[in-house]
């Protein structure tokens, strides 16, 4: 093979460095990541509007902390939903499943007096079983996910009503309740702020910076092009600030809720799975072009099966957290969660055609949804307005996405 130097061709083409190269680089970086940023801008915009409308109540740490907590159930679903959508499928059953998983947990704990740990294990197993069931029909029997999960939506809602007997099951044990309501305890009980949360925040920032620097060093060692030092520094600083902001808010209120911690861990984990593992890349390939995936020897069936198993497990996590937060399981729990989760994934940049989307985006989308709910209820607006607002934001977000993409093309 022709051994031209590994530098070469790709670097020679159009790189205009008119004006300050740093500013140009920042603008360039902004432009290429435009889609991610538009959604963040949308979220910040919504927050500003609500802050204004509620004369500052919205932005108080207490409220934001609650907002994060409220968003967790849907956000956990959105983490899985975005992968399902990227693969070119859809899952309509997750709302009913959150209800069913909650009902199973409630039944086991309240009616059968089981301890919290076995309840969690059995509920997760139930979620995985449901995932196997739906995955089997989709991957191995070729029924479209839309149909399989539409059927699931009805079947599982029926089961919820059966298990709960139409009534509310409560109360849960204290330890179970803590999953949805508890906060990371202080290390020193007399300290004025939640010291453990603050330390955790610092640790996360430290790890992030360390990791990024190591990655960059590694790239340099391999002789790859890396972003300019100043740009790299800027990126580190901005991301660290965002992390500090999120942890700061919660530290300032009562500390980090366990549920938010679980969500954070799942987000990082699944972003990693999507970007850095073979399974994740295969999901994108299958959704982007199924034929090309098949011709590349990708095991489409197994990947699809695994995807729905993961989705099933995540519905169990979501159901557990939701039940814990309400301290009760009810027949209508999780109603319409599937729509919020789908909307979150789409607002976060997932393409309804498959092949595109990101886990971080889906989290932003879930926060957008939760912010609207939260802000409007602070204003005592009625439910009709909440639905209408969420619908319009969905429409608007997708339009912004399309419009910005056209400009970039």
């Amino acid at each position, binding site marked *: *093979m*022709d*051994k*031209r*130097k*590994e*530098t*070469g*061709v*790709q670097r020679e*083409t*159009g*790189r*205009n460095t008119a004006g300050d190269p740093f500013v140009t680089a920042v603008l*360039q970086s902004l*432009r*290429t990541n435009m889609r991610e940023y538009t959604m963040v801008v949308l979220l910040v915009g919504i927050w500003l509007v609500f802050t204004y409308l509620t004369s500052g109540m919205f932005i108080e740490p207490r409220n934001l902390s609650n907002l994060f907590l409220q968003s967790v159930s849907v956000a956990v679903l959105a983490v899985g939903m975005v992968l399902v959508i990227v693969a070119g499928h859809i899952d309509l059953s997750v709302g009913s499943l959150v209800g069913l998983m909650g009902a199973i947990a409630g039944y086991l704990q309240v009616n059968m007096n089981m301890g919290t740990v076995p309840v969690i294990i059995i509920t997760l197993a139930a979620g995985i079983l449901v995932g196997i069931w739906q995955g089997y029909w989709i991957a191995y029997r070729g029924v479209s996910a839309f149909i399989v999960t539409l059927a699931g939506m009805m079947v599982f809602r029926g089961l919820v009503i059966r298990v709960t007997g139409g009534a509310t099951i409560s109360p849960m044990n204290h330890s179970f309740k803590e999953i949805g309501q508890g906060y990371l305890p202080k290390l020193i009980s007399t300290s004025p702020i939640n010291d453990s949360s603050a330390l955790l925040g610092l640790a996360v920032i430290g790890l992030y910076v360390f990791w990024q620097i190591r990655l960059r060093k*590694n*790239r340099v060692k*391999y002789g*790859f092009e890396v972003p300019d030092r100043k740009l790299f520094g800027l990126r580190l600083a901005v991301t660290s600030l965002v992390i500090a902001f999120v942890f700061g808010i919660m530290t300032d209120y009562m500390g980090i809720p366990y549920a938010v911690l679980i969500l954070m861990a799942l987000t990082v984990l699944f972003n990693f799975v999507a970007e*850095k*593992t*073979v*399974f994740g*890349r*295969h999901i*994108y*390939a299958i959704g*982007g*072009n199924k*034929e*090309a*995936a*098949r*011709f*590349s*020897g*990708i*095991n489409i069936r197994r990947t699809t099966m695994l995807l729905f198993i993961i989705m099933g497990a995540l519905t169990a996590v979501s159901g557990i957290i939701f039940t814990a937060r309400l301290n009760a399981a009810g027949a209508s729990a999780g109603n319409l969660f599937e729509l919020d989760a789908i909307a979150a994934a789409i607002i976060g940049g997932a*393409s309804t055609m498959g*092949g*595109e989307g990101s886990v971080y985006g889906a989290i932003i989308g879930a926060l957008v949804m939760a912010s609207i709910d939260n802000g409007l209820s602070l204003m005592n607006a009625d439910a009709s307005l909440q639905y209408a607002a969420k619908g319009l934001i969905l429409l608007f977000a997708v339009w912004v996405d399309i419009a910005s993409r056209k400009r*970039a*093309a």
Partner: protein
Amino acid sequence: MDRIQSDYVLEMVGIKKEFAGVKALEDVNLRVKWGEVHALVGENGAGKSTLMKILSGMYPAGEYEGRIFIRGAEQSFRSLKDSEKTGMAIIFQELTLVKQMTVSENIFLGNEIARRGIVDWNNTYELTKRALREVRLELNPSTKVKNLGIGQQQLVEIAKAISKNAEILILDEPTAALTETESANLLQIVLELKKKGVTCIYISHKLSEVLQIADTITVLRDGRTIATESAENMSENKIISLMVGRELTQRFPRREHVPGPVILKVKDLTVHDPDVPDKVALRGISFEARQGEILGVAGLMGAGRTELATSIFGTYGRGISGEIFLDGKKLKPGTPREAIKSGLGYVSEDRKNNGLVLMMDIKNNVMLASYESVTKLKVINQNEVIRHSNHFVSSLRIKTPTLEQRVQNLSGGNQQKVVLSKWLMTNPKVLIMDEPTRGIDVGAKYEIYHIMNDLVKQRVSIIMISSELPEILGMSDRIIVMHEGRIVAEMAASEATQEKIMSYATGGMKRG
């Protein structure tokens, strides 16, 4: 609006176009005379398709710099519809027919013959038949497009343009996917249109074609007009040196190969068409491929060459009988995963549908079939991904600003190089290449031939399916010819001639 003298039916002056930091066109001038066939040539990524998208309004006024004049009047098209109003019709490099719809629905898509919103099917059929006759296509107008071969689809596109009574017809690599006979037929049709006064802009990498039909030739390089010359003053070598900026002494870098032992053995393979179960697609196929040789597979479109390749690879067919051995191991039919694992690669002829994931970037497409090789504990080593991708981008000269570029933004030829990289990345023992140089410029072709030679030197067995006979004759060590789902001849390259292959391929001679 100032008028320039109207010697030219069409003028593009000082065209510039940039995509998110990439300058695709820097300064292009194109002047086309009334009623001529004007050829546009240039390397992959030179900017030919982009220029035509600007001309046709696909990239609306304001997204580029420069001026366009049609019949002396300045234009600023905002859409394809605008340009069609001036009598222009364009056939894009990537076909744009709706596969699920019928031929006549496609031909009149957007221009439906209707009265008060109700389609007049009788009239539509009549006009479809007439348009099809002009391109010499014997087809039922209600055939679904997905049942047509690529060559036929290309002709349907032309029929569609003709039905719009186009006065300026733009063809972007219309013969890339066609066999020699189909190409000759298409060129004939273009010449007939020219006689009727249609002006034609013709983009092609097949220089012999270009010299055959063009009156004037414009050469683009790196987004600039390098030359516009009357075809009489041009030769293939002159065009090539203008295109690539250097002399290319040899078209086929043939090397002496020393074939080793048999690595792929196909025994009595019979395969049925998966859509029409009674139809036999391949009948009694037996052949062998050796390590360190190039086996050429010739035949007309529809002879079953691609079906043969995909049956071996495991993505085609039902009711399969016969045996396939790769490196002594029997391959199970219908399992491309197993085939790849045992060392088989297949560079497909249809890069858009089954070669690439267009919305993914270059590096992920390169790695698509071989993530496992750069993975530890199921986690991908990104550094390795970048290293390998960089290697292919520079060794195959893929023209792109970064590895993160989406493949859909690459020019057609560069997309083809990405597909090739994907398979080179799997380190195959046997590599089936189905029309490997389709849509690739002469310089890059030469590089791909070199790569093939290198692979052969590393004892890889290459099976090359090609509709370009010079390529088959220039590169193969051995040649098999297919006709109607059978192998009708096998010969050493030294004994082969174009005439001999063609007569077998058309069924003229029986296997003797």
